[in-house]
């Protein structure tokens, strides 16, 4: 698998070159959220806001009212938990084109409860006017900024940093509100988002070898959630539907799928895999994904439960885990 490094850092700087209206706001985590390249290239368009997250969100609303295109960058958790009221009144209500780029969603950070955004989609999905996007690989990081051009209102974007795999061909960019077909099958329909798609891909080929075909769709637009392909895929599943997400099972992808299935009268079993309504803690990504049932093996066990049979798949059978150092060349500090 091709691994890319600092994709967002490079892409943002390149993309913003001919867009003088783009201003980048950072809350003291500039290299941690990959806006250091932009800062070096366009120091005049880089606004250091210090740790004033509430102020930063309202201020971005003011900039947007004046015709600028502000990009807020910090850890996902500090966007919605710290500044929800400001996002609501200063950005979402007036439907202003502020881009909130949240890094280290879910259990991607070893920073523990205070740093882990496990219910961000749940909280923000309830906010009118807001669009919610989540990238799953390097190709989506590279293409999501172009997608953002067509969205006039505010966007919350679950972003990936550091070493990121390329799962999707470069000529198959992020398409707004359109599920991405990964594998076709008719036994189980699987919806995954963000890093969960990489995990799911480790399992689906092994499942196929054991005679279980998976209709796997990757979701990168969480709001709106109106792609008819989702309902069609859910309805076509022989044994049921599984969702896999790096988020609480409440309010995220699993809930989005449940809602559209119920609204369309799709009477299939739905299994939501994600953080089972519990807080996480500080540990490595593979450890936490195993502990909370977000990894490839958890998906296999989920398929087994749905089918009511054991498939005799062990960890050794799954495609190799992509080992990622917590401290790496791309990010010296884990945070």
């Amino acid at each position: 698998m091709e691994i890319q490094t600092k994709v967002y850092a490079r892409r943002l700087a390149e993309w913003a070159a001919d867009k003088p209206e783009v201003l980048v706001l950072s809350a003291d985590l500039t290299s941690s959220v990959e806006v250091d390249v932009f800062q070096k290239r366009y120091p005049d368009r880089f606004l250091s806001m210090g740790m004033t997250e509430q102020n930063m969100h309202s201020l971005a609303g003011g900039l947007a009212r004046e015709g600028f295109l502000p990009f807020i960058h910090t850890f996902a958790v500090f966007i919605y938990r710290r500044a929800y009221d400001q996002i609501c009144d200063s950005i979402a209500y007036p439907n202003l084109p502020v881009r909130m780029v949240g890094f280290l969603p879910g259990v991607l950070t070893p920073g523990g409860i205070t740093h882990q955004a496990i219910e961000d989609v749940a909280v923000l999905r309830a906010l009118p006017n807001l669009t919610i996007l989540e990238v799953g690989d390097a190709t989506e990081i590279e293409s999501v900024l172009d997608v953002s051009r067509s969205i006039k209102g505010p966007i919350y974007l679950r972003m990936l940093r550091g070493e990121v795999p390329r799962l999707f061909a470069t000529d198959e960019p992020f398409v707004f509100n359109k599920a991405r077909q990964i594998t076709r099958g008719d036994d189980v329909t699987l919806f995954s988002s963000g890093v969960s798609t990489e995990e799911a891909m480790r399992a689906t080929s092994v499942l196929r070898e054991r005679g279980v075909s998976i209709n796997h769709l990757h979701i990168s637009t969480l709001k709106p959630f109106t792609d008819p392909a989702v309902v069609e895929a859910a309805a076509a599943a022989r044994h049921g539907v599984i969702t896999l997400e790096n988020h609480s099972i409440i309010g995220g992808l699993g809930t989005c799928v449940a809602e559209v299935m119920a609204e369309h009268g799709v009477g299939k079993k739905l299994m939501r895999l994600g953080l089972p309504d519990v807080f996480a803690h500080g540990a490595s990504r593979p450890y936490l994904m195993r502990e909370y049932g977000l990894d490839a093996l958890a998906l296999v066990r989920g398929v087994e439960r749905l089918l009511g049979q054991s498939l005799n798949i062990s960890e050794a059978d799954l495609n190799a885990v992509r080992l990622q150092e917590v401290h790496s060349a791309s990010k010296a500090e884990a945070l």
Partner: protein
Amino acid sequence: MTASPSPTATWQTEATRVAAGIRRRVLEHVLRHNGGYMSQACSSAELFAALYTRIMKLGPSIAPAVPLPFAGVPSATNPHAFTGAGYNGPKAPDLDRFIFSPAHYALVLYATLIETGRMAPEGLAQFNQDGSTVEMIGAEHSPGCEVTSGSLGQAISQAAGIALARKRRGETGRTWVMLTDGEFQEGQTWEAFEVLSAYKLDRVGVYVDVNGQQCDGRMEDVLNIEPIAEKLAAFGARVVSVDGHDLDALAAPAELEPDGRPLVVLAYTDPCRCLEPMRARAPKLHYLRFTSPDERAVYQAFYETLLTGTKE
């Protein structure tokens, strides 16, 4: 509509008339509806009058004299949503902007717009009526409002964003913010001052109604925040404390040449100014609602004396 001042009248004469009109209109409203934010009008009448007649460089209103009904919330599918900024004139590089923070002072702002000829008096009849923009707690569609600020502490940051944008464009117009002392209990206000100072946004001027009151009573008793001036100075602001009922004192700091620091005028005010009967209710002054016909009669009688005092 009130008559225009004669050409020979000083701005202070006009501002005095406006301030008296603000208090009278708000009291009239409170009497008619048995409730309203009365003490806020008493404390800030001169502050609003000075801002609108002397301090702010605004063009004439470009909004309908009688406010339009609510056109729906802003959204991707509603092209009709609007703000109330037009009552403060057009937006232009050399003109000032007014960002109104304490949204519960909306009635005071509406009364000011009427007294300064920016809104028709009948507009106030829509106050708090269903489907109207003349809301009790002003939002960005309400007359004179440009941002949504009812959650206190947000307007100052939004104003900082607007001022930062204007500075980047080299605009000379100033951005005035009207705040209240209670908002200094909010952490966001201090975050905003960190940024206003660091970015040297000296074309931001903040007028604060320091009436010492909040919903629960006297700020001193609820949660003391004084000394505000010293705290703000330590945050890098240029602070001037004035008697908030002295028009000349209110207007003078706006004449200072900007020096790199955001300007803050702390207008110390009396929440019962010109409404003596209200002192009996202290320290609960946040919202006036009569508890008996007798109490109402006292205010009604006081209102009659105001009417004879201000000729229309």
